[in-house]
C-alpha cells in the first residue's frame, strides 16, 4: 500500500470540491454564501494539510512535495482564496450552476498543485490540462455576455494549439532521452552530450516548442494575444485567478522543466542551444510590449491585463538568471504579485459590481467617495509598480539583483527603463482617483468576504514589504529544491 500522505492536500481538495458542488443543492436560491464559505474553508484546511505532506515523494519521484512545490501551492491556494472571496457578488446573481462555479475554481487549483509537484512530463502535462480546462469554462461563465463567451472560446482554441505545441516538444524530448522523468532526462542528456558532443536541431526544436507552449500560459509576447481579450471578457474574479494562479502555474512548470532539467543549457556557453538567451529576448520583448501597450488602455481590466503581461516579463528576468538567487527571487516575486494583483482585481470587481463600469475614467473622485478602497487600490497599484516600502519593490529588487549577478545587466537596464513607462499607467489610476475634481456618486462598501480579501491583500503587500524575512526564508528554501 502506497503511503499517500504527500498527496493528501490534493486528494482532500478534490473531494472537498465535490462537497461544495453538492452543497449548492441545499443553499438558498439567491445566496452564494454556503458553497462560497465552504470553498474558503476547504482552501484553508488544504493549506494546513501541506504541513504533514511536506518533503516527501511518491511513485519513484513522479510526484514530489519539495519546498518549491509547497511554496507555489501556498500561492495557488492564496490566489484561489482571494478569487473566491471576491466572487460572492458575482455568484449571488447567478441563477444556474452556482456550485459548479466554485467547484471549477477548486478543480483548477488542484490541477495547479499537481503541476507544481510534477517531476515527470506526463504528470506535468495532466496537471497543466487539469488547471486549464476548468479555466476555459470559467472564462465563459457569464453566458449572457457576448464578451465572456468569446473570451472562453478564444482561450480554449489558443490553449488547444499551445497544448499541441507543448506536447510536440515533450514528445521530442522523450524521443531523445527515452524517459519522461525529469531527473533521468538530465542524466540521459548529459550522457548523450558527452558521447556525441552534439544534440542536433531536434533538441533545439524541443526546447523552443516547450517554451512556446508554456509561454502561452504566462502570456509572454508574442504568445500573449489572447490575454487582453480573455481578461477583459471573463468575469473579473476569474480574470484575477487567471492572471495570478494560472500564471504562477505556468511559471512553476517552466522552472521545473528548464531550471530543473535543462539547467546545463541555461548559459550562453552552450550556444546555440542555450535557452537562457532566447528567454532573455522573450522577456525583453514582453516587458516592452506589455508596458507600452498598457499606456493607451481605457478599460482597467485591459490595462491590468497588459500590466500582468509586463509583470510576467519581469518574472522571466529572474528565470533567465537560472540561479539560486534567481529562483528564490521569482518565488518571492510571485508571492508579492499575488497580493497586489488579486487585491487590485478584487477592487475592480467590487466597483464594477456596483457601478457597472470598468473604465479608468470612471474612477474619478473615488478617493473622496470611498477613501479606504481608493487607498487600498493605490497601495496595490504602487506595489505592482515597485515603489518602496511595499512588497513589490523588494520583489523587483531581488529579481534584478539575480539577473545582474548572472551577467544579464542589459536586461536589467531594459527592465528598469520599461518600469518607468509602467509608472505612467499605474500613476494614471491614482491620478484619476485622487486628483480628479469630478465628484464620484458611489460610496462603496465591500461585502464581508470581499473585505476579507482586501484586508489580506493589503496586509500582505505592506507587511512583506517591511519585513520580508519569513517569506524570503521560504523562497530561499524553495530554490534549494534545485541543483545549480
Amino acid at each position, binding site marked *: 500500500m502506497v503511503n499517500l500522505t504527500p498527496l493528501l492536500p490534493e486528494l482532500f481538495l478534490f473531494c472537498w470540491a465535490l462537497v461544495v458542488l453538492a452543497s449548492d443543492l441545499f443553499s438558498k436560491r439567491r445566496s452564494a454564501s454556503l458553497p462560497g464559505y465552504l470553498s474558503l474553508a476547504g482552501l484553508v484546511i488544504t493549506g494546513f494539510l501541506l504541513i504533514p505532506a511536506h518533503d516527501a515523494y511518491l511513485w519513484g519521484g513522479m510526484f514530489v512535495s519539495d519546498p518549491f512545490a509547497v511554496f507555489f501551492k501556498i500561492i495557488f491556494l492564496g490566489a484561489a482564496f482571494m478569487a473566491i472571496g471576491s466572487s460572492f457578488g458575482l455568484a449571488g446573481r447567478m441563477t444556474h450552476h452556482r456550485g459548479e462555479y466554485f467547484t471549477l475554481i477548486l478543480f483548477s487549483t488542484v490541477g495547479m498543485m499537481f503541476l507544481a509537484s510534477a517531476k515527470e512530463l506526463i504528470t506535468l502535462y495532466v496537471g497543466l490540462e487539469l488547471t486549464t480546462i476548468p479555466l476555459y469554462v470559467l472564462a465563459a461563465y457569464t453566458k449572457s455576455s457576448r464578451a465572456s463567451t468569446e473570451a472562453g*472560446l*478564444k482561450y480554449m*482554441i*489558443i490553449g488547444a*494549439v*499551445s497544448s499541441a*505545441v507543448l506536447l510536440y516538444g515533450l514528445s521530442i524530448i522523450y524521443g531523445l532521452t527515452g524517459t519522461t522523468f525529469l531527473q533521468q532526462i538530465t542524466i540521459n542528456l548529459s550522457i548523450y552530450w558527452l558521447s556525441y558532443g552534439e544534440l542536433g*536541431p531536434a533538441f*533545439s*526544436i524541443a*526546447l*523552443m*516548442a516547450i*517554451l*512556446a507552449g508554456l*509561454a*502561452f500560459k504566462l502570456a509572454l*509576447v*508574442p*504568445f500573449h*494575444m*489572447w490575454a*487582453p*481579450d480573455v481578461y477583459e471578457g471573463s468575469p473579473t474574479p476569474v480574470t484575477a485567478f487567471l492572471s495570478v494562479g494560472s500564471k504562477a502555474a505556468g511559471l512553476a512548470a517552466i522552472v521545473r522543466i528548464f531550471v530543473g532539467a535543462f539547467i546545463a543549457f541555461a548559459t550562453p556557453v552552450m*550556444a*546555440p*542551444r542555450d*535557452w537562457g538567451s*532566447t528567454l532573455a*529576448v*522573450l522577456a525583453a520583448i514582453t516587458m516592452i*510590449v506589455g508596458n*507600452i*501597450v*498598457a*499606456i*493607451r*488602455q481605457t478599460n482597467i481590466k485591459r490595462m491590468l491585463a497588459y500590466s500582468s503581461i509586463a509583470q510576467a516579463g519581469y518574472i522571466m528576468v529572474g528565470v533567465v538568471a537560472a540561479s539560486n538567487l534567481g529562483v528564490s527571487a521569482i518565488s518571492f516575486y510571485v508571492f508579492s504579485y499575488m497580493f497586489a494583483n488579486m487585491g487590485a482585481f478584487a477592487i475592480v470587481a467590487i466597483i464594477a459590481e456596483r457601478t457597472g463600469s470598468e473604465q479608468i475614467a470612471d474612477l474619478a473622485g473615488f478617493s473622496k467617495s470611498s477613501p479606504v478602497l481608493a487607498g487600498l487600490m493605490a497601495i496595490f497599484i504602487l506595489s505592482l509598480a515597485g515603489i518602496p516600502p511595499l512588497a513589490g519593490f523588494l520583489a523587483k*529588487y531581488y529579481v534584478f*539583483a539575480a539577473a545582474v549577478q548572472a551577467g544579464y545587466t542589459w536586461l536589467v537596464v531594459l527592465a528598469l527603463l520599461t518600469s518607468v*513607462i509602467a509608472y505612467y499607467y499605474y500613476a494614471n489610476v491614482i491620478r484619476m482617483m485622487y486628483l480628479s475634481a469630478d465628484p464620484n456618486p458611489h460610496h462603496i462598501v465591500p461585502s464581508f468576504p470581499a473585505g476579507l480579501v482586501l484586508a489580506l491583500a493589503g496586509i500582505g503587500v505592506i507587511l512583506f514589504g*517591511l*519585513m520580508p*524575512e519569513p517569506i*524570503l526564508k521560504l523562497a530561499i528554501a524553495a530554490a534549494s529544491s534545485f541543483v545549480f
Partner: protein
Amino acid sequence: MDQYLVIVPLLPFLAFVINGLWRNRMSKNTVIALAVGSVGLSFVTSVLLFIRLLGLAPEQRLIQQTLFTWIPVGTLKLDMAFMLDPLSAVMILVVTGVGFLIHVYSIGYMAHDEGIKRFFVYMNLFMFSMLTLVMADNLGLLFVGWEGVGLCSYLLIGFWFHKDSAANAGKKAFIVNRIGDVGFLLGTFLIFWTAGTLRFPDLAARAPEVFALGGGAVTAATLLLFVGATGKSAQIPLYVWLPDAMEGPTPVSALIHAATMVTAGVYLLARLNFLFILAPTTLVVVAIVGCVTALFAATIGLAQNDIKRVLAYSTISQLGYMMMACGVAAFGAGIFHLMTHAFFKALLFLGAGSVIHAMSDEQDMRKMGGLKKQLPTTYNTFLMATLAIVGIPIFSGFFSKDDILWQAFSSGHGNPLFWLIGVLTAGLTAFYMFRLFYLTFHGQPRYDQQTADHLHESPRVMTVPLVILAVLSIVGGWIGWPKVLLGGAWFERFLAPVMSHAGGGAAAETVGHSPSLEYGLMAVTIALVLVSIYAAYSIYNKSIGRATSLRQSLSGVYKVIYNKYWVDEFYGATIVRPLVKGSIFLWKIFDVVIIDGFANGLAYLTGDASTMGRKMQTGHLREYLTAFLIGTVLVIGFLIVR
C-alpha cells in the same frame, strides 16, 4: 524586560498613527490626552528600563531587542533592532522626560491655535523619531531616526505655513540639513565598506582591528560623519538654519531646537566615540569647530533684540561647548552638558514662551521690561535657568561646563587655548543672558497700554512644567559632582562602560595636574562670569539709555555682530545666488529645451507605439493564432540559425 525596549518609541508612534488618521473624528481633548499620555507612559517605561539597567553589573549594561531583519542584501544586514546602554538610557530619559514636560506645557501654549491637533501629531512623530535615533543599534536605523527628526523639524518650523517667513525657515532648515546628510551617508557607506558592519556593538569590537590609529579611512569616515553632525547640531559652517528655526511655535523651539534634536550630532559623536578616538585629526577639527562656534555664536547673541533669537544663538554656542568636549575626547562631559543644557535651555525657551504668551506675541526685548511683578513664576524659574546656563556654582550648568573646561585644559587631546576660548565664551554667555534677563524682567515697562491690559501670568498647565524644569536646572548637575569638590562623579562612572574605548575622562586626571590648578581655573571662570553679570547689570538694569550710548561708542563692532557677521549674506552671494543663476540657466536652456524636448518626444513616441500596439489587437482569433505560430517559428529559428 528585554523585549520591552520597543515600547518606548512605539507608544508615541501609536499615538501619531491614531491621531494622524482619525484626528478629525476625535475631540480636541482626546487627541491631546492620547498625545501627551503616550509620551508620559513612554517616560515611565524609560524610567523602569533605566532601573533595570542599574540593576546590572556595569560591564553588562546592554539590553538589546531585535524586532526583525529589515534589509538583508548581500553582506549588508540591517535589523530593526534597539539597544539600551548607559548612553542611550540617559538620552531616552532626557528625551521622554523633557519631552513630556514640553508636551504638557504645549497644552496651554497652543490652546487657542486651531492647528493644535496637527501640532500634537507632528510632536508625537518627532518623539518616535528621536527615540528611534537614540535607541537604534545600527547606523542604518539611526539614520531613519535622523531623517525623521529632520522631517518633523521642517514640519514644525513651518507649522504656521501661511507665514512666508515660517515656510522659508522650514525650507532653509531642511536644505542645510540635507548638506549635512550627504556627509552622514557618505561616512556610513565608508564605514560599511571598510568595517563590513553598521551595528554599534560589532563596530566597537571590530574598530581597533579594522582601523589603524589615525588611518585615512577612519579619518575620512569620522570627518564625513562630523559634517552630518554640524548640520543637525548647528555648528559652523552649517549653523545658519537654527536662528531662523525660531519661526516655529515656542514649545517646538524648546523641544527640538534646544533640548533634543539639535543634540543628535553630539550624540552621534559620543555613540561612535570608539571611531573618533582612532582619528586624532578629526578630533582636532571637532574641537576647533566646537570652540570657534561657541565663541562666534556667543558674540552674535550679544546684540540680538528678539528674545528667542538670543536663545537660539545661545543654543548654538552651548552646542559648541559639547562639540568641544567631544573634540578633546571627553565624550562623557559632552553628554553631561547635553543633559543639563536640555533642562535649562528647555526652561529658558518655555519661560520665553510664557513671556511671549503674556505679551500678546511680542518677541522684541526692547518692548518689554519690568515684567518681574506681573509674571512671578516665570520670573523666578527663568532666573534659575539663567543662573544655570551662566554656570553659577551648585546650579547644574556649573558642573557640566566646568567639566568641559577642565577637560579642554587637561585632557590628552586638550589645549589651554581651547580652555581660554571656553572661558571667554562663558563670560560672554553671562553677559548676554543677563542682558536678556534685565531687559525682559527689570527696568521700566516699555510696552503699550493694550499689551499691558492683556498681561497675565500663564496658566498652571504651563507654569508647573516650568517649576519642575527649574528644580532640574538646579539639582540636575549634582549627579556629576566632581571628585575635586568632594563629589562622586557618578555620571562619569555610569557612562564609563560606553566610553571605555575613549580613554578620556578619568584617564586625564592621572596626567598629573594638581587639584590646586583645577581650583584656580575654576576660580578664573567664576570671576569672569561674575564680572560679566555685573557689567550686564550696570548697563541694562535701570534703563536702556546707557545701552544706547554704549552702542553708539562701539558702533563699528556693534554693526558687525548685529548683522551676524553677514554670514547669511555671504552664503547668499557665494553659494545660493550662483546656484540659483546656474539653475535658471539649466532650467531655461537645458531642462526646457533639451530634457523636456527629449522626454516629450519619447513620450509621444511611446504613446504612438502604444496606439499602434493597440491596433494590432484586432480581436480576430485567426490573427492571434498566426501570431502564436509565427512566434514559435521565430524562437526556434532564433535558436537554430544563430
